[in-house]
């Protein structure tokens, strides 16, 4: 029965020392230990979260890059298409312009040719007329160079007049 009888002295010392120990341990052991453990846990958790976030960021960045690349590609295609169109347009325009210019020049040339021809024909006519007169003058002069001939001519002419 001695074994199960609580002893006052032991309870007294146990209470005092245990209370002191709890107090001291709380202040000098558990406090720092638990707070550092917690600190470490939070820091690990934060690091993990940061890593996760970084991963997400990288993924996002990749997607963004892909998107930008795609956009650039599209833009390039668009620009190329536009350039092609512009080129075609410019070429077509140039071609049509050249065509009209050519036509116009041909027309002018044709008109000029006609004018020149007419002028040439007129001049030729005049020249022929002048030459004819000159030739006629020379011929007449020759025929009328002596009196016999003049008389013959007058005779002839008179002959004609008599007929009338």
């Amino acid at each position: 029965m001695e074994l199960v009888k609580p002893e006052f002295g032991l309870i007294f010392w146990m209470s005092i020392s245990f209370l002191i120990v709890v107090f001291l341990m709380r202040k000098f052991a558990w406090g720092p230990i638990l707070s550092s453990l917690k600190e470490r846990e939070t820091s690990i958790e934060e690091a993990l979260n940061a890593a996760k976030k970084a991963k997400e960021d990288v993924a996002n960045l990749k997607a963004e890059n892909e998107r930008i690349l795609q956009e650039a590609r599209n833009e390039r295609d668009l620009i190329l298409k536009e350039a092609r169109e512009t080129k075609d347009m410019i070429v077509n325009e140039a071609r049509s312009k050249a065509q009209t210019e050519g036509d116009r020049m041909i027309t002018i040339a044709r008109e000029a040719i006609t004018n020149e021809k007419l002028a040439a024909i007129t001049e030729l006519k005049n020249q022929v007329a002048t030459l004819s007169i000159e030739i006629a003058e020379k011929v007449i002069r020759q025929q009328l160079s002596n009196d016999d001939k003049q008389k013959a001519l007058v005779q002839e002419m008179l002959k004609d007049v008599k007929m009338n």
Partner: protein
Amino acid sequence: MLKNKRLAIFSVLTFLVFTLIFSINVAQDSTHNQLPDNEDHSTAAVAGADGHVAEAHAEAGHAEEKLNAGKIIMEHVADAHGWHLWGHTEIPLPIILYSSERGFAMFSSSRFDHGHKTYNGYMLKGQKVVAVDEMGEMDAHHATINDAVTKTIFDISITKNVASIFICCGLMLLIFTNIAGAYTRKRKGLAPTGLQNAMEPIIMFVRDDLIKPSIGHKYEKYLPYLLTVFFFIWIANLMGLIPVFPFGANLTGSISVALTLAVFTFIIVTVNANKNYWEHVFMMPGVPKGVLVLLTPIEILGVFLRPFVLMIRLFANITAGHIIALAFFSLIFIFGQNGPGVGLAVSPLTLIFTVFMTVLELLVAFLQAYVFTMLSAVYIGAAVEDHHH
């Protein structure tokens, strides 16, 4: 495979040696009976191998011839006013007494000379200090006990267990302030090493697997107390398993220590208990009035029963472990009474048993600390639990 074979061969050999020596002893029995005083001699010789038993044997008085294993074991399990080392050598511990009749008295327990002398009007009766009429120093066997004064004595002596409490507390403070230092000053922010590395998983285990699930989100307030309880019980249990000074006291197996711890838990539960808890004790919600008449007394009893069971469990487990280990060990000397040969023959077997028990006690040491802490946490958890209906 090889290990198993070796173990089998070893046990068979042990058994053979045991039976051989036993049979030799039986053969010698006839001669032994013819020499009755031979028994005393052999007992003393074998008992002399172990100081504890020899001393207990001597203490039991020379009048007692037979070895009283039960008495020896109980003396080892119980508290004492001196710290026994070996043979007749023991460290005297201070005796501090307060009596309303005689005031304070403080002196060394060596003054009592193992209970053979009175001092300053006191003497030892077993391990209990009692008052005597004679004030001088004299032979204790002739002193007359003064019961009236004895009743007024408050014995706050530093007994073996009290000294053990101090040692245990000192060890705890040393270990954990050292660890705390590692967390804050020396290696702040670095990976844990050494002692810190060994204790950290245990601290985290107690915090995360024991206290947190038992109490819930309010656990942080109770962490210092519960962690201290856990490590106090564990270290005290382990100290009890080491048989040499300054360890070996049956500290957690002392009912006073178990009672103090249980009372602390009870106080914490009662102080922190919320309305919900008291409601469940006195007016269990959702129970008909007629049943309440039956249930409320049970619940009120339960409030006190829980710390009581906490106390008994710790006390009984540790004391039982000590008793069994000592009983196995005492078998050597009980058998030794039949001649030194028998004692020697039994010794390997009892040694195996004792080692086995000690290993088991190592487990129990942790287990009891675990159980006490967990149940304390569960009681606290029940008291501070939020309303869930």
